[in-house]
């Protein structure tokens, strides 16, 4: 991609920081005996390898109710959180605040009893998760999620359209979650819109990219499903790169990397975060920080749009059928 370390210092710092946090958390939880049927994974920016010291440390606790009962799972989760906090981790307990029945994530997909919560867990476990405790169960449960789509008898289609639709649905849910939080929930807006316009958008584009890459693998006679499963949990920038470079458009990936590096650099600056947090919507035109990030979002949008156009030229029918119409 014609990039040096000096071109993307914030991307590399985020990878190094996230990796160090993940390893430190594994070691911190190494004092606990592994309870078969329970697993802990980092999600969010740590799981995407995009974290900075200012990031939340989001932790999902999964359990298989056929192997461990809910009360024991709750107690074990408390032990895990205490061990992490004892090691200095500021564990966020907003979205991920209780043990999750992993088997429940495999049922009611698309049904009336489905919740945003189960959609969220499925999407994040498949696309931005790193195990912290009990790698064996973590991988087994994540594989089970992928296998739901893979083994669908009627609806799966050749290209796992149900999985693509579910990830697409989660992206749209995030967009509407923003609307609800800032219009009715009284939450601050500026950080959220910048995350939507950078990290969420990149996540969505990366999902579409690897679906196209899996289609190409299929056309070459390779294992479509395995290709998709392996690519999905790579960091979004890496998903972009592994799709763009073999397609002869490393230049497009480069532009995305550069714009995203600028976003990560801004977001790791406490002063930038503080200004965005305090910014009233009516004052957006008076914030140099906000205007700079808005310009960067537009730069990323243009680069992402040209990359999508490249995908569209190569996979017109596929994209038209599976992501547009």
């Amino acid at each position, binding site marked *: 991609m014609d990039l040096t370390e000096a071109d993307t210092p914030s991307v590399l710092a985020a990878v190094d920081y996230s990796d160090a946090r993940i*390893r430190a958390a*594994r*070691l911190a939880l*190494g004092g606990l005996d592994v309870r078969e*049927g329970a697993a802990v994974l980092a999600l969010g920016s740590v799981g995407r390898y995009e974290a900075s010291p200012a990031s939340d440390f989001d932790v999902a606790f999964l359990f298989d109710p056929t192997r461990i009962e809910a009360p024991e799972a709750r107690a074990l989760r408390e032990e895990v959180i205490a061990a992490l906090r004892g090691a200095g981790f500021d564990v966020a307990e907003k979205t991920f605040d209780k043990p999750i029945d992993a088997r429940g994530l495999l049922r009611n997909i698309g049904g009336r009893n489905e919740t945003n919560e189960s959609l969220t867990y499925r999407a994040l476990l498949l696309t931005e998760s790193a*195990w912290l405790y009990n790698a*064996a169960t973590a991988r087994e449960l994540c594989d089970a999620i*992928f296998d739901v789509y893979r083994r669908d008898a009627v609806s799966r289609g050749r290209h796992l359209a149900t999985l693509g639709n579910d990830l697409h649905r989660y992206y749209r849910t995030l967009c509407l979650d923003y609307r609800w939080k800032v219009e009715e929930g009284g939450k601050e807006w500026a950080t959220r819109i910048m995350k939507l316009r950078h990290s969420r958008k990149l996540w969505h584009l990366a999902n579409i990219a690897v679906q196209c890459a899996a289609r190409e693998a299929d056309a070459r006679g390779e294992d479509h499903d395995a290709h*998709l499963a392996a690519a999905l949990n790579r960091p979004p920038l890496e998903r972009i790169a592994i799709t763009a470079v073999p397609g002869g458009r490393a230049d497009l990936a480069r532009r995305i990397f550069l714009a995203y590096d600028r976003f990560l650099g801004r977001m790791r600056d406490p002063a930038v975060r503080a200004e965005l947090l305090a910014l009233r919507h009516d004052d957006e035109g008076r914030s140099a920080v906000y205007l700079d990030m808005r310009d960067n979002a537009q730069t990323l949008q243009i680069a992402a749009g040209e990359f999508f156009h490249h995908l569209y030229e190569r996979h017109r029918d596929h994209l038209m059928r599976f992501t547009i119409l």
Partner: protein
Amino acid sequence: VSSAVVVFDLIGVLAEPSWREFAPPGLETWPRLRAGEIPEGAFWSAAHALAYRRALCFRRDRLAYVERLRARGHRICLATNFHSGWLAALLEKSETARLFDAAVVSSEIGVAKPDPRFFAEVRRHAPADSVFVDDQKPNCEAAARAGLRPVHAYLGRDIEGEVERLLGG
């Protein structure tokens, strides 16, 4: 072929995690540890050693498949680049030693996959045309040269389906 031997790699196939997912970056003495040339204490800290032993665990889904293969009369062999102390800890705490008819461990025999000498040792337990499951492509290629039928267990692959296909199930 109902009694064919099935040879499994350990980490990345039957059990998790790899020591690489645990260790600080830059450990360069792994080739010596896996060949049994140095003690674990010369590899990493006591805290890492303890935490890794605790973290080692079989995947229940893969272990269930091994049980089904055994119930059908297949012999099961482990073939792993691993430290024998780690394997002993894993088998002891999971009480699964009974599932494996043989284990070829690099630190015990002094050579590692994909070295042909490792596969010569495997062949003592697994006749030609035995199925060999491993997540590393060079190991699968070496297994094929040694007369085994490899299943490359790359991430996302339906391993059970492929083993069954080779077994004619």
